[in-house]
């Protein structure tokens, strides 16, 4: 089984068709439309998605194939990011998952965007920019991160304590926990969530290095 570093790659990764965003329309319909619009059959790739009302233009197996492909890639991306502690994927940069040199296939830009968008729809990712070039991956949801922080606080007897943001991310106590090296944006969001619940107060210092938290758990 192929590995990427220590990560065991799923079998679909070696099957070329999974690197082509599978069609949204039934082939027979696409062919008919191509005739109607007088374009080449092979140019009918512009159809990225079909609104549910037009599902009659899509055969059940075509829909199933598309759903299966999206699900496989979503799970793969989340799994990989979780084990490798990756928080941000940049669409324009090379990301090991998006290409398989062994079978000489790469996901197109549209495909990458489609799979990441699917993660966003499911609440497991967020676009960081309007142009949808950077994606924040929530392999733990913000709520889960909040729970992890609370556990961290209890484990270290910080119920009434104070800690800087940086210490939470990279201090000695964080070593060996999932908080170590956490993305700053995600951490701030989780902390703000806990602030809303009255579990802590965020205060600014003289610089971002001094930004800290007073816990009241």
């Amino acid at each position, binding site marked *: 089984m192929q590995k990427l570093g220590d990560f065991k790659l*799923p*079998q*679909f990764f*070696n*099957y*070329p*068709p*999974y*690197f*082509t965003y*599978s*069609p949204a329309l*039934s*082939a*027979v319909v696409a*062919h008919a439309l191509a005739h109607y619009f007088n374009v080449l*059959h*092979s140019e009918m*790739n512009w159809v990225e998605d079909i609104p549910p009302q037009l599902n009659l233009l899509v*055969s*059940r*197996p*075509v829909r*199933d*194939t598309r*759903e*299966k492909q999206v699900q*496989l890639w979503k799970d793969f991306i989340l799994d990989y990011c979780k084990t490798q502690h990756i928080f941000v994927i940049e669409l324009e940069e090379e990301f090991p998952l998006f290409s398989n040199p062994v079978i*000489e*296939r*790469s996901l197109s830009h549209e495909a990458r965007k489609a799979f990441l968008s699917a993660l966003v729809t499911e609440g497991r990712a967020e676009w960081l920019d309007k142009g949808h070039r950077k994606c924040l991956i929530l392999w733990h949801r913000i709520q889960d991160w909040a729970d992890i922080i609370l556990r961290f606080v209890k484990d270290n007897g910080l119920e009434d304590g104070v800690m800087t943001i940086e210490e939470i991310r990279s201090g000695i106590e964080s070593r060996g926990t999932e908080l170590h090296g956490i993305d700053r944006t995600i951490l701030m969001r989780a902390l703000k969530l806990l602030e809303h619940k009255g579990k802590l107060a965020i205060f600014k210092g003289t610089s971002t290095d001094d930004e800290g938290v007073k816990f009241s758990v």
Partner: protein
Amino acid sequence: MRRRPGIGGLQTAAAARDQYRLLGENVAKLRTDLMKEQLATFRSQLEEFARKHKNDIRKNPTFRAQFHEMCAKVGVDPLASNKGFWAELLGIGDFYYELGVQIVEICLATRSHNGGLINLQELCMLLRQKRKTDREAVSEDDCLRAISKLKILGSGFEVISVGKRKLVRSVPTELNKDHNEILELAQAQGYVTVDEVEGRLSWTSGRATDALDTLLDEGLAMIDDGHKDGKRRYWFPCVSSISSSVGADI
């Protein structure tokens, strides 16, 4: 019998004919009786054999297949019902029933990948993986028998031959001759291109595209536009070798 002229001679001939006919009937009856007796003896010997080798039949797939053949020769079907002598003696009715259920599960789980057509070898492999903890080994012959029982239940299962392979169909999709030819062509590399189909089978471009479109819409083919030569490839999961299959998390 000496021929005698006149009426007396005619009567003798008639009597002779009757006697021959009776003899003939007796001989036929004798033959049938003999055969019935031989068959009965053979069947009881078969039962004795099954009793003695019950464990071998359960544990060894090759032995099991040969046993089935023997039974078929004398018109005995150990799987005909879940009750009765054979089922109780061997308990293999349950074995095939269980296999059938697992086969259905595997076909359902892989349907979104292969469109409801799976090659027998792969099915067997997935079955063995699924039954890892069970002591009884499973052969392709066992799979085929379990599937033939499924067929009787009217579950839409069918085994079709395409080229050198056997494919198990679990959906009502009807494949015509054109589709079969494409599947056979795809066995070489796991995929075909439109050019290949046209060239190797001497078809018009329309005929090739029509067939491939249908196979796509039935979920039996998947599109690959990623090759550097820019030619679209149609891959067929049902003929691919095991290493490139997507075994569902079953």
